[in-house]
């Protein structure tokens, strides 16, 4: 680059606007080191120069480089997929399966999991976190009941409870009774000396057995979907890792710090917190896997993927249903999975392929519009009538 001239104000690169964060940092350093105004200006120029130099060159095939940068460690990952991370019983899918899950935008991850951060007094001790953790975890009737017995003679089911068990989960007998009343229609529900009796009208044992199984799975307390919770200590504070994800309900719990609580379910995040949050979760999830496997990838590659997946305001997967289906070129779409469908549809509508991107140009063996193939020569023609005039429309 040319040596910048202080007096030359019309250099384009000096007009460049730097991100606010960089400028603030510059201001801070200038104050710390007690720089003079001219020193500060020199620094600003240098900063702009470096900022420009660090930008990607026009025509760089960033997409392919991203694909290669993530694909290469991916081939090694397949060899060791059986690794899990997490504490004891909480195994979270990691490795290649998880990356595929993220890129395919699976509605439900194989192992949905949340990290629930807690507000100040509650995140200080294990006991406090334990308390909330117990409240968050979904409890089904089968866990609470000390005894669930069928009485075949009068077609009824008897539920017996342990008082201590109930108070540990912050539920009362009346509460359970109310839930049963609400959930079970067409059955007679009665309280009976410290227990509950459910009577079935039909005289059918098979049905009674089914009812028993249904009752066992009836959620009584806690947040739906969250089947396990585990308080863990991270960076000096206690937080709760869960198996199962329900971001909305978890954020509504008073003690939960809703600003930091996350889930690994990207679709859920997009619905509740919006596309920007979903983009961040994509980045975090991919980075987490790559880091765990000890394969550091430049964050910009991961960000590019997250950007493409979220750029339209709604999530698109990296599959033939997602980003590939939105390519403008027929040939590019056809060259990736189910070509017939695309070719036939294109012929029905009479689509025109402008041959603007890489794949099409490789197919017809022309220079691809990337790198050295990108720039064209622009010639200013004289304003004279030539035979070929009118053809130079590009």
């Amino acid at each position: 680059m040319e040596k910048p001239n202080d007096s030359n104000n019309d250099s384009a690169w000096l007009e460049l606007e730097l991100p606010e964060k960089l400028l603030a940092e510059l201001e801070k350093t200038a104050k710390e080191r007690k720089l003079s105004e001219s020193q500060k200006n020199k620094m600003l120029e240098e900063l702009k120069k470096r900022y420009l130099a660090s930008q990607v060159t026009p025509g760089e095939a960033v997409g392919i480089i991203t694909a290669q940068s993530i694909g290469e460690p991916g081939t090694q990952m397949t060899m060791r997929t059986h690794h899990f991370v997490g504490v004891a019983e909480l195994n979270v899918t990691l490795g290649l399966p998880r990356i595929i899950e993220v890129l395919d935008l699976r509605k439900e991850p194989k192992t949905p999991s949340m990290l629930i951060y807690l507000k100040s007094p509650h995140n200080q001790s294990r006991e406090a976190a334990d308390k909330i953790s117990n409240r968050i975890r979904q409890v089904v009737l089968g866990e609470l009941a000390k005894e669930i017995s069928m009485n075949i003679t009068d077609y009824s089911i008897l539920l017996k409870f342990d008082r201590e068990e109930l108070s540990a989960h912050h539920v009362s007998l009346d509460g359970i009774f109310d839930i049963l009343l609400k959930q079970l229609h067409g059955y007679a529900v009665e309280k009976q000396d410290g227990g509950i009796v459910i009577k079935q009208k039909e005289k059918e044992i098979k049905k009674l057995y089914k009812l028993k199984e249904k009752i066992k799975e009836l959620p009584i307390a806690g947040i739906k979907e969250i089947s396990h919770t585990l308080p863990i200590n991270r960076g000096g504070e206690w937080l709760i890792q869960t198996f199962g994800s329900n971001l909305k309900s978890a954020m509504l719990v008073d003690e939960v710090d809703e600003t930091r609580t996350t889930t690994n379910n990207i679709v859920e995040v997009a619905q509740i917190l919006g596309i920007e949050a979903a983009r961040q979760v994509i980045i975090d999830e991919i980075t987490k896997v790559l880091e765990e496997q000890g394969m550091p990838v430049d964050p910009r590659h991961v960000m590019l993927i997250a950007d493409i997946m979220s750029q339209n305001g709604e999530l698109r997967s990296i599959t033939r249903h997602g980003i590939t289906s939105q390519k403008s070129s027929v040939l590019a779409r056809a060259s990736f999975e189910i070509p017939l469908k695309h070719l036939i549809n294109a012929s029905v509508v009479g689509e025109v392929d402008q041959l603007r991107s890489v794949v099409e140009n490789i197919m017809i063996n022309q220079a691809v519009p990337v790198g050295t193939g990108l720039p064209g020569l622009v010639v200013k023609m004289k304003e004279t009538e030539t035979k070929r005039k009118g053809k130079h429309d590009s």
Partner: protein
Amino acid sequence: MTDVYLNGGLIGTVDDAAKFAESVISGRREGKVTSLLNVYHNKKEDTIRLWTERDRVRRPLIVVRDGKPVLTDEHMAKLKSGELKWSDLVKLGVVEYLDAAEEENAYVAMTPNQIKKNHTHLEIDPIAVFGICTSMVPYANFDPSSKLNRGQKTQKQAMGCYALNFWNRMDTAINLLHYPQVPLVKSFTQQIYGDALSSGQNVVIAVIGFDGYNINDALIVNRSSIDRGLWRSTYYRPYVTEKLRYPGGQIDDICIPQKDVQGYTLEKDYRFLGEDGVIAPEVEVGGGDVLIGKTSPPRFLGKLEAFSAAANIRKDTSVRVRYGEHGIVNKVIVTESEDGQVLIKVDVREYRKPEIGDKFSSRHGQKGVIGRIVPPEDMMFSASGIVPDIVFSPNGLPKRMTVGHIIEALGGKVGALAGRSVDGTLFHSEGSDKLRQELLALGFRNDGTEVLYDGRTGRQYHAKIFVGNMYYMRLKHQVADKLQARARGPIALLTRQPTEGKAKEGGLRLGEMEKDCFVAHGSALLMKERFDSDKTIQWICEKCGAVGVFDSYRAKAYCLCGEKTKVEPVEMSYAFKLFLEELRAMHIRPKLMLKDKY
């Protein structure tokens, strides 16, 4: 009540499963039931499964009763004197065969002194845990199991003497090692297998880097060792043809084909053929040379064509030496096939010296290719004047943890110096401590290292270098079979792209991922050039966008939509032209819209 299954089918129930299983086993040991029956009591499923099916894999184990093996010294003595045979032991219930299912119920002790009360069986020898090839790896119990897998695999690929009657055989593509040796360090299994059919040679190794030519498992080989006959081999390939009869009285002809035969190549290709159309032994031939001259009658004769002149043109179906191969005709056999046709076999042999790129391996999965063949004067030498045959890099050892590899080298050194064979049978091998003491007694350092001098400078190496003797095998993967390159050559008819594969003199494909690298580098024009192999110029109609016709008689191009429309030459890949045609075959009409490029 426990279900009892025989070969997978339910045959009944028993009340006491454990007792039943026990009675079956004791009945088998006493000879009341066939020894081929196995019983498996699955406690989890609560079933008894009896197996008598053929083709089960079974293995023998010594029966243990009340914490003591049933096999006694008395038995052993009788075995030695010949009073008892192996089959007698099975009959006596001393040894029994277990299949995979019954093994689930067995608790097998490795050695007699390990036996505790609840053991049911005793391993005849720990070596029986491994297969034949694996147990031939010396000091195998010092290697990781994954390396044993590979060591076992490379032994199968090793050249050697595959059969003693090889001279009378004609096997397809066979490598024979000249002067195979018995390993200095060998296992018990190797002795059973037989010394006559060994498949490698004992070499002196040094473990040191050599100017980077032995990076990544490559080997440095001493040229004087090769000149003295180390690892030389012969490659045999038979070519076979049959004089076939066709319906209608037509018959193949073994002869020197006439020049008017369809598919006749250059005259020089047929120069070695004798009057009978077959080559003579001991003739040096190269790729494309005809070994057996043969013409066949034209195929698929229609009714009309039978009377035309073309009907009598015969095809050249001569047997030629494969592209890229050469050698000397070893043997010619003219005989009769099972159907009574004339059968001709020509065996071609090629004499091969080790060259750069040939693959070698020790028995521990430490395989590598020759990186450089070094003249003897440049090799390192020891004070006693020993020059290593091969040099491999120390970097291959720590990450693979093949300790057995090092012990074998140590044992080989002792064996070579003391003039004896060292026992490397896994679990029973001569210990490395003992070997070290012996090495010391023989006047060498006990850790196997020696002071070496650089052959080029004569200077002493700063470090002491590990020198030993190892058994190295030449593997069947040789560059001579694989080396291939082309600048131009045959193309496929349909796509006009270069053919694929070495046999067809094919090109090296620039595949999908290689293409991506070009894109990533942004070298668009270089990539275009690389994909130019099927470049074609098509005349495209400006009006209708279809591929036009070039009339070479009038030297004029036109489109079928009307002779007056303008057609322009457009450069594209032939594959794309094919694609357009395929689309038309699917009733999709592609149009090309032309535009000036700049």
